[in-house]
């Protein structure tokens, strides 16, 4: 039986400095200063918040899924996980998490991967990598497709079996569940609130997320 690591936060929404809802299919890009804390709330449950991180002082240094999981010797992200960049720099640390487990092996959907996973006629559908590219193109002209590394899927449950299988399970998150991360170094956060309409994990119903930020205590 899998262990889930659920840790509640003592932070109050009324003390936050930022509070915004991002609808399914929309993107968000924002810089966190060291000590600031970002809470991502799964408003209606079983939504996937596809998230990438960049070193704000060196935008070419992106989040590394493999460095992050090999560093802790465990493939799941939860309270205590330090998210590392490709160069090994500490970007953010997960400090609270009522969902208990998040995926970083499954990556983001794209038009091209949709044709492989579902059917060729899904090519025109909206997808996370398009959202990532639109946000990057608006934020800073230095960013290109080269900066799209494999991301975190907050609220997604993608268990790996000892025999090397990989499955997609639902039922881990629920309305109001959240994950909180504190910036260790200046970090750019890029989110695609997933618009996936082909995946039973979200009951074929993408829903909003809410983003709340607190200054350092």
């Amino acid at each position, binding site marked *: *039986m*899998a*262990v889930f690591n659920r840790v509640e936060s003592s932070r109050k929404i009324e003390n936050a400095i930022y509070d915004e809802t991002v609808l399914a299919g929309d993107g968000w890009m924002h810089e966190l200063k060291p000590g600031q804390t970002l809470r991502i709330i799964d408003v209606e449950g079983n939504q996937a918040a596809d998230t990438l991180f960049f070193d704000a002082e060196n935008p*070419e*240094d*992106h989040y*590394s*899924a*493999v*460095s992050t*999981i*090999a560093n802790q*010797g*465990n*493939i*799941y992200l939860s309270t205590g996980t330090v998210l590392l960049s*490709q*160069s*090994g720099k500490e970007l953010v640390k997960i400090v609270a998490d009522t969902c208990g*487990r998040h995926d970083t*092996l*499954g*990556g*983001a959907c*794209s*038009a*091209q*991967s*949709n*044709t*492989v*996973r579902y*059917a*060729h006629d899904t090519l025109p559908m909206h997808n996370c*990598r398009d959202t990532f590219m639109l946000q990057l193109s608006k934020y800073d002209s230095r960013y*290109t*497709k*080269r*900066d*799209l*590394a*494999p991301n975190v899927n907050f609220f997604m449950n*993608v268990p*790996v*079996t*000892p*025999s*090397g*299988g*990989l*499955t997609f399970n639902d039922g881990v998150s629920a309305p109001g569940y959240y994950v909180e991360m504190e910036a260790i170094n200046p970090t750019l956060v890029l989110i695609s609130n997933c618009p996936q309409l082909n995946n039973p994990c979200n009951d074929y119903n993408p829903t909003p997320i809410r983003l709340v930020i607190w200054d350092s205590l």
Partner: protein
Amino acid sequence: MSYIWKQTIPAGGKWSGRIGRGKSVTFTAQESGANASLLLYNAYDLTERYNMPDTLKAQHTAHLTKGHVLMSDNGRVFASITADTTGWHDTISGYTTRSFTQQKYGASTYQESRNAWRRNGEENFSMELLRNGLTTRDLVPNLNLFSKVYCDEEGNMNFVSSHCKKGDFITLRTEMDLLFVLSNTPNPLDPSKTYPSVPIEITVDEAAPVSSDDYCLNFRPENKRAFENTWSYDLLLGNKTLSTI
């Protein structure tokens, strides 16, 4: 074994080069306990690269062996695994860095150890990427040929030390023209206290075209659609496809 090209990469060594489509590329462990860290890029569009999540997700697997294909971020098949004597290759453990290598195996400099100094994956990749017009910005999750890393029910990653035997091999059939970037450096999760990298031999030969009964093509319906994407790409470029279908 016949071949049109052969190269041995010593422990700690590196190699990069373009290998055209329709080739069989065989990596053979010259001793037990090999690990070869590998990155793949489209030879003519270096922004298209091996994509670990797309590869794993589409084939519902967390390990790689015969039948699996290596997918790019553009929904195409880069290469197919047509032969494998180990049953498991890792793609979730990443590569070593200089500080990690020094911490684990002790500091070593070229000044002191000459060519026996302990090299690391990040620096080997960095040099070969720059040689090919890329930078560390282009580093993404890599393949670790010959390494087995499995996860228990809690997600803890376990390295299997006795996995790779001397003479074990894996053959990749290239489905597109590819840039290979290889670092023969240890898997980061290898618990061995001594620097364990061993020589790897690479041989390249012509591969037979993909036929309708091809094992990798028929491994999953997702694989067939990824092959179809690759063949469309070839036709649009004006290339003849390498399939007989």
